[in-house]
């Protein structure tokens, strides 16, 4: 790969040299505004495309004229563009007027339409490329957290190649898993989440999220969850600009639990056994570890018989490394504009590199090559074409450590690290005195042998890898023809795009290798497995894993014309796409999922003052029956730029912009919940999950087939969205902001009925039934100013709230009203309410309600809230006492603060981001003693002395009343609220003098980071990241998210 990059650099540099033509007449000058020189303004010669320079930090420029217009065009961000006649002068003083209203700021909305922000009537938020690139994470969506109001995201894991956040726009509206995900459109082509996370941020020009009906209605049946639009970079008229960027990143877990050492863990284990023995005392009882054992654990004098291994240190490095490099070329003429980019990222893992000398790479890593070539070709004056080819090729590698299937076959060092039975601090010595791999009788026999998986360091060293290899390709071609001969402003556009994602799986691994149990007394070595003294060769396996293809075709008729004060826009779109994917359900493998639709949009504004927009889509998806395929999704919106009114202009000079806008409309959602595909077809399924019969003395198997769940003609879910918002800016745009309130109601949510008796005898067909609402608000406030000549700064705050509620769900008329899901927020579970710990006295007190079964002092005590027919407490802890006592896992509010400052070549930017109002339930392997290794919090388990100050119930090996499996309570749900230093960046752009000497356009040095610091209670209690996957009993600890420390250099040639 390196060779390819070097080749490209040489090739492109040569290209650049050829383009640089000898210069003729020189003009120089300075550009300034009221307060002083303007650096970075663009000075271009009119009529000669590509001949442009920018001003240096003192506002000076020098340009060689080649054409005949003798006119310079000066533009700068925040200034009104100016044309200056040269008229023989060779030295110019040019003053620019500040453009306070930023009226020309544009935002990309649906179907890549660039719309002036000031005339937008819908609700959309956007972020531009440079800001996205401040986040060094390998997955692009991780860079959006905290930067877009209404964007809710959680990064569940930091596993290389798999660390993308799951995100929602304005929260969720459907109780079904997997049907709340926003539509992702990259240059008008629908991408899957997997494809999105492989996109290189360097290729991205802007990302917009569309939030309300007015902006999403044109996506019709697919728009209800909001839309994330990605626009890639394109060529600009001018000489070739070559940018190269290289970054080195150190990654570190945000948090990985640090477990107690052997001595302290052994004390706790003994205590648990002492507690359990007290229940039914056995005279001969002795706890697991004698005083002698404890002493040896403590003094470390018997490292083979009584090991005390710091597994965290043994398994994990302090820092993982990540390397990223990008090279792109951008430029063009009127006839041909190009943006070509190459990128490479290598995201390393954090397990130690034990497999170094094995000639197979058993580390965690993700490496990816990205490429993109976006071409714009002007064929005639009226016809232009674009042709984009982009894609990536990547590998995700993980160690193969082979765990026996009886133990869940997790095959994951993180699971083993957290599991007490898999890897207690005394599990085994890593190496024996003779250099062979160590093992122990403890590990061999524990749990009846089900944790006898072998020495984990040995497995990381010798057991090889599992690897996923993936290739994404997207081809996107389109043509635009201006139809000015019919009427000015009319154009037609056609797009054809193809995208494909193909992946396979390969592993090179082994499952056994010899290790030995060393007996110091006899100085002998016994093999772990009597049959294994040899290391067998690695075994190869291969499996095609994933295939996805999508073909999209679109035809647009666009109209955009200004008649004096009236501005009219219009769009008619015919689009269709067809997606084909491999499915886990063999019946539906590679059946195209077709989508077809017409979209129309009409916009009108009067002097950018009164704004109207009507959008509509008529489209459908063939996942539904013919009769229910198509739907019409209209939206209307209007806006009023109050600040444009004469009386405002006259009286409130400080008010630059004040726009009130509102929209209302209906959008659809056509994703079907898992397991419901083609719900209008009834399927007779073979084998049905029940053990198949066979007959005869030879047990001849017979085939079976059975009626499957009933069919029903379901159709899309519909969401009515209302949005009202205000955009404002004042004090010459020093202060600007947006406030939005939304109220969405979703109906016809695809649901399985919950009220038909099992006497019916069959799973029921899904129907469009559940109704929910989702409301909330967002605000964004920015303050930017300059102090003196060189110092500028920006302060920005954002807050988003989205609160949902189930308005109707088909559920039995439960007499325990507090257990009805209707009225609750989405994602709630029925649990007990924790109410302290049972004391010894509580046990004998009949007035204290208790659950059935054995209860002992130190067990979790639950509140008795119901049980009697009239709903009053019944003095017993029963299922009736369960209620909704924990918040859902998805935060209902998220907020962020940004601070940016610049001084001469230095710039500084930090983003703090937080989320609130959500709970995280940790996994058993995260907190339950003997499921997890011992944490310091276990030392504060219940004792009579601690009483209700205890942090955990009585230590025991046999949970009954405290078990999160049988008595799940809010005790196990902890507040996930957090505040993070999400990104921070310091950069320095070398002064023009230095750059010029090096014959370069610019050099920028920067250091930045991600997730640098976190404030969260979960850090202290459970040593768990607050964004981790919400636990269930069966789940395990995952690879934690990472902090990234990054240093980079970016050079523009």
């Amino acid at each position, binding site marked *: 790969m390196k060779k390819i990059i070097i080749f490209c650099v040489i090739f492109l540099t040569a290209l650049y040299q050829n383009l640089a033509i000898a210069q003729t007449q020189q003009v120089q000058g300075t550009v300034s505004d009221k307060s002083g020189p303007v650096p970075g303004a663009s000075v271009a010669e009119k009529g000669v495309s590509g001949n442009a320079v920018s001003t240096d930090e003192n506002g000076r420029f020098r340009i060689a004229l080649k054409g005949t217009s003798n006119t310079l065009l000066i533009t700068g961000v925040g200034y009104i563009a100016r044309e200056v006649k040269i008229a023989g002068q060779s030295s110019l003083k040019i003053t620019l007027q500040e453009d306070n209203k930023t009226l020309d700021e544009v935002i990309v909305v649906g179907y890549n339409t660039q719309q002036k922000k000031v005339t937008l009537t819908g609700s959309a938020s956007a972020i531009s490329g440079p800001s996205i690139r401040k986040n060094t994470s390998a997955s692009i969506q991780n860079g959006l957290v905290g930067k877009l109001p209404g964007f809710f995201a959680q990064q569940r894991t930091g596993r290389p190649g798999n660390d993308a956040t799951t995100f929602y726009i304005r929260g969720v509206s459907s109780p079904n898993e997997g049907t709340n995900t926003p539509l992702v459109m990259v240059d008008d082509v629908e991408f899957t989440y997997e494809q999105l996370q492989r996109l290189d941020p360097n290729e991205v020009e802007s990302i917009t999220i569309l939030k309300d009906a007015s902006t999403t209605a044109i996506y019709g049946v697919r728009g209800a969850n909001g839309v994330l639009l990605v626009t890639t970079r394109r060529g600009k008229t001018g000489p070739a600009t070559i940018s190269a960027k290289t970054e080195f990143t150190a990654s570190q877990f945000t948090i990985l639990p640090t477990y107690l050492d052997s001595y302290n863990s052994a004390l706790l284990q003994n205590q648990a056994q002492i507690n359990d023995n007290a229940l039914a005392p056995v005279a001969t009882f002795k706890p697991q570890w004698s005083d002698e054992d404890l002493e040896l654990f403590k003094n470390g004098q018997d490292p083979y018989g009584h090991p005390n291994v710091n597994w965290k240190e043994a398994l994990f490095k302090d820092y993982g490394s990540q390397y990223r490099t990008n090279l792109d070329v951008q430029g063009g003429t009127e006839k041909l504009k190009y943006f070509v980019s190459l990128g490479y990222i290598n995201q390393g893992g954090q397990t130690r590199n034990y497999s170094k000398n094995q000639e197979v790479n058993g580390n965690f890593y993700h490496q990816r090559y990205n490429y993109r070539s976006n071409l714009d070709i002007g064929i005639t004056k009226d016809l232009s074409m674009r042709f984009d080819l982009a894609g990536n090729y990547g590998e995700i590698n993980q160690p193969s450590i082979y765990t026996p299937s009886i133990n869940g076959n997790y095959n994951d060092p993180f699971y083993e690290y957290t599991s007490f039975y898999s890897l207690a601090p005394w599990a085994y010595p890593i190496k024996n005195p003779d250099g062979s791999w160590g093992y122990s009788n*403890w590990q061999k026999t524990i749990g009846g042998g089900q944790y006898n998986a072998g020495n984990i360091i040995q497995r990381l060293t010798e057991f090889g890898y599992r690897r996923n290899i993936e290739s994404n390709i997207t081809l996107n071609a389109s043509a635009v023809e201006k139809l000015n001969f019919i009427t000015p402003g009319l154009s037609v556009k056609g797009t*054809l795009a193809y995208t494909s994602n193909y992946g396979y799986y390969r592993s090179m691994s082994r499952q056994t290798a010899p290790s030995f149990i060393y007996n110091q007394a006899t100085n002998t070595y016994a093999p772990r497995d009597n049959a294994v003294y040899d290391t067998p060769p690695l075994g190869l396996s291969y499996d095609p894993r994933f295939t996805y293809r999508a073909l999209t075709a679109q035809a647009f008729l666009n109209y955009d014309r200004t008649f004096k004060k009236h501005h009219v826009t219009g769009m008619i779109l015919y689009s269709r796409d067809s997606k084909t994917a491999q499915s886990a359900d063999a019946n539906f493998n590679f059946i*195209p999922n077709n989508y077809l639709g017409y979209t129309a949009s009409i916009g009108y504004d009067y002097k950018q003052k009164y704004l109207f927009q009507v959008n509509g889509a008529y489209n459908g998806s063939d996942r539904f029956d013919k009769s229910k395929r198509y739907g019409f999704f209209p939206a209307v919106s209007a806006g009023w730029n109050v600040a444009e009114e004469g009386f405002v202009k006259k009286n409130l000079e400080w008010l630059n912009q004040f726009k009130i806008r509102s929209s209302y409309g209906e959008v659809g959602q056509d994703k079907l919940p898992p397991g419901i595909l083609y719900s209008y077809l009834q399927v007779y399924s073979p084998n049905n999950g029940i053990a198949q019969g066979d007959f*005869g003395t030879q*047990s001849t198997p017979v085939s079976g087939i059975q009626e499957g769940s009933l069919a029903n003609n379901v159709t899309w879910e519909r969401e009515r969205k209302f949005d009202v918002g205000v955009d404002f800016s004042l004090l010459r745009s020093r202060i600007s902001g947006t406030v939005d309130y939304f109220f969405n109601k979703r109906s016809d949510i695809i649901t399985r009925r919950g009220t038909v008796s099992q006497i019916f005898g069959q799973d029921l067909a899904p129907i469009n039934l559940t109704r929910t609402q989702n409301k909330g608000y967002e605000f964004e406030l920015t303050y930017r100013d300059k102090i003196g000549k060189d110092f500028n700064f920006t302060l920005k705050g954002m807050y988003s709230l989205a609160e949902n509620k189930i308005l109707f769900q088909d559920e039995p008329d439960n007499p325990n009203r507090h257990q009805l899901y209707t009225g609750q927020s989405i994602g709630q579970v029925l649990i007990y309410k924790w109410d302290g710990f049972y004391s010894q006295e509580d046990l004998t007190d009949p007035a204290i309600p208790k659950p059935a079964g054995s209860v002992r002092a130190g067990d979790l005590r639950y509140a008795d809230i119901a049980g009697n027919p009239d709903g009053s407490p019944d003095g017993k802890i029963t299922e009736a006492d369960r209620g909704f006592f924990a918040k859902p896992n998805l935060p209902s509010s998220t907020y962020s603060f940004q601070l940016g400052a610049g001084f001469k070549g230095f710039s500084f930017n930090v983003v703090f981001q937080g989320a609130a109002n959500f709970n995280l339930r940790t996994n058993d392997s995260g907190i339950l003693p003997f499921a997890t290794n011992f944490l310091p919090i276990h030392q504060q388990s219940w004792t009579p002395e601690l009483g209700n100050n205890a942090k955990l119930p009585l230590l025991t090996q046999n949970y009954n009343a405290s078990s999160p499996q049988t008595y799940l309570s809010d005790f196990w749900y902890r507040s996930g609220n957090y505040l993070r230093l999400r990104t921070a960046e310091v950069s320095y752009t070398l002064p023009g003098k230095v750059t010029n000497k090096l014959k370069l356009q610019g050099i920028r040095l920067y250091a930045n980071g991600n997730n640098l610091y976190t404030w969260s209670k979960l850090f202290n209690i459970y040593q768990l990241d607050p964004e981790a996957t919400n636990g269930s009993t069966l789940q395990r600890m995952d690879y934690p998210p990472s902090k990234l420390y990054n240093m980079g250099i970016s050079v523009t040639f």
Partner: protein
Amino acid sequence: MKINNIKLTLFILLSVLAGTFSSCKRTEIEPRDLNTEDIIWDETDQLGRKAEAYFNNIYTYLPNGFNRVGGDFLDAASGDAIPSRNNTSIENYTNGRLSDITNPDAYWGQSYSGIRHVNIFLANIDKVPVADAIKVPWKAEVRFIRAFLYFELLKRYGGVPLIGDKVFTLNDNMELSRNTVEETVNYITSECDAIKNDLKTDPIIDNLVGRITKGAALALKCRTYLYAASPLLNGGAVTNYTGAQALKTAGITSYPVQDDTRWQKVIQAAEEFFAYSTYFVIPTSNNPAYYTIFTNKKNAEVILAKQVANNFDLEINNSPVSYINNNTAAQGRTSPTQSFVDAFPTNTGLAISETGSGYNAANPYANRDPRLAATVFYNGLTWFKRGVETFEGGLDKKNDPIAQPVQTKTGYYLRKFMGDFSNSTSFSNQSHNFILFRLAEVILNYAEALNEVNRVEDAVTQLIKIRRRAGITAGVANRYGIKAGITQSELRDLIRNERRIELAFEEHRFWDVRRWKIGSSAISGPVYGTKITKNANGTYSYEKVQVGNMVFEEKQYLLPIPYDEIVKDGNLKQNPGWSEFN
């Protein structure tokens, strides 16, 4: 504007659009590889191959009993055993935690699901032109399964909604009420009578073993009448709860009035079975060994068994925990109780408490009924070429919760149904067909009914058949330990004990203690095991120790209909004591 350019543009656009539209003539827009209704009920297939697959699948609704409830035997809640693992769902039956939500038995929905598939089959099979010689037995067999599923509901809940041949659609009213016990019993028995002559006769040919025969229909009829005549359903019911009396009077939880002539129907049904069966015979001695009943696919003592491919799951799940089969340790999930072990007489047929039984408390497993060694692993029984060690600290009872998180709680493990691996070093696949009906049960049903109508000596004759087959010595006057002049009441206890040990772990005891209404004595109070200490001289000392406690409430005689079902169907009455809310 140059016309050429426009032409070019239009040409390109039209080509693109034409390309897209041309694909409008789409085929295969939805799955074409699905089995749809007309493929299953193929009106041209004389062999009816898909219909046969549908028929085969209905067999999967026959109950299975091995480690059925959350990995444990149902009998681990019958007082015969307790689960070795902690916090298993089977404990709900004995720890007082059973409710209409926590009942771990899925047979309410499961049964009606099976019934629906039978009804679909009956409604459609006549479309398929299969020869009557094939079709007639098919219909009879699925109707047997339907009747059997109703019986499964009857023994759990009493009278249940009878839906006949109805296949419900989304437009049907599902607010069904329960039928009476009498209607349910009559439906099951009349179905048995209606189909018995359409079923295949016994013995069935080797490659159809497992299919339902006439013998099974007669045995089901006999069993149904037995439950109908027994105290619980025969006017007994559950009475100590609000509304209980009304349910009884309505005939839903039992016949409204007790009627001892119902025993006559059991006798008639048993006699009809014996008159029919020339194939089903019980050996006159303990040869072949008792355990072979459970390990042979075809057996003259077995009337119907649930067929599965040979495996050794049962051995892995229940063998003593020290036995490791190819790196997989056995799990020893089932711990038989001391009271169950004590229920086995000595080989004289006398109970261990009786004088002259030859029982030696210092060597408690010697000279016992041979069925004990075939049912329970006790300390010293040979397995994998060595003795089972359930003494304290022995290989199978290490008392080390870390190395052996699961071990016996009672000093015993379950041995029944396993192949003979006493001289093996690893398990091999073994026939494990769960027996649904076998001859010994019909004989015991018969004996019980005869005794209840006070034909005591006729009943003794039947009981002797069982004891002789078990390997009990003939003893005085060839009465196999049954004393001369035994009273009806004494014989009742003896028959019940015989049923307990002969049919142990075959999902009888759990229901028997309910239909006899003896829950408060049989499955309530302390549970005992044995604590075995190995002495220095190699002998063992035995001590009876309490290992648990069982809670039984009267309402448990009938199981609760799932809570959701009661709330969904306003006309469905919950069994007494369970309904906490309505």
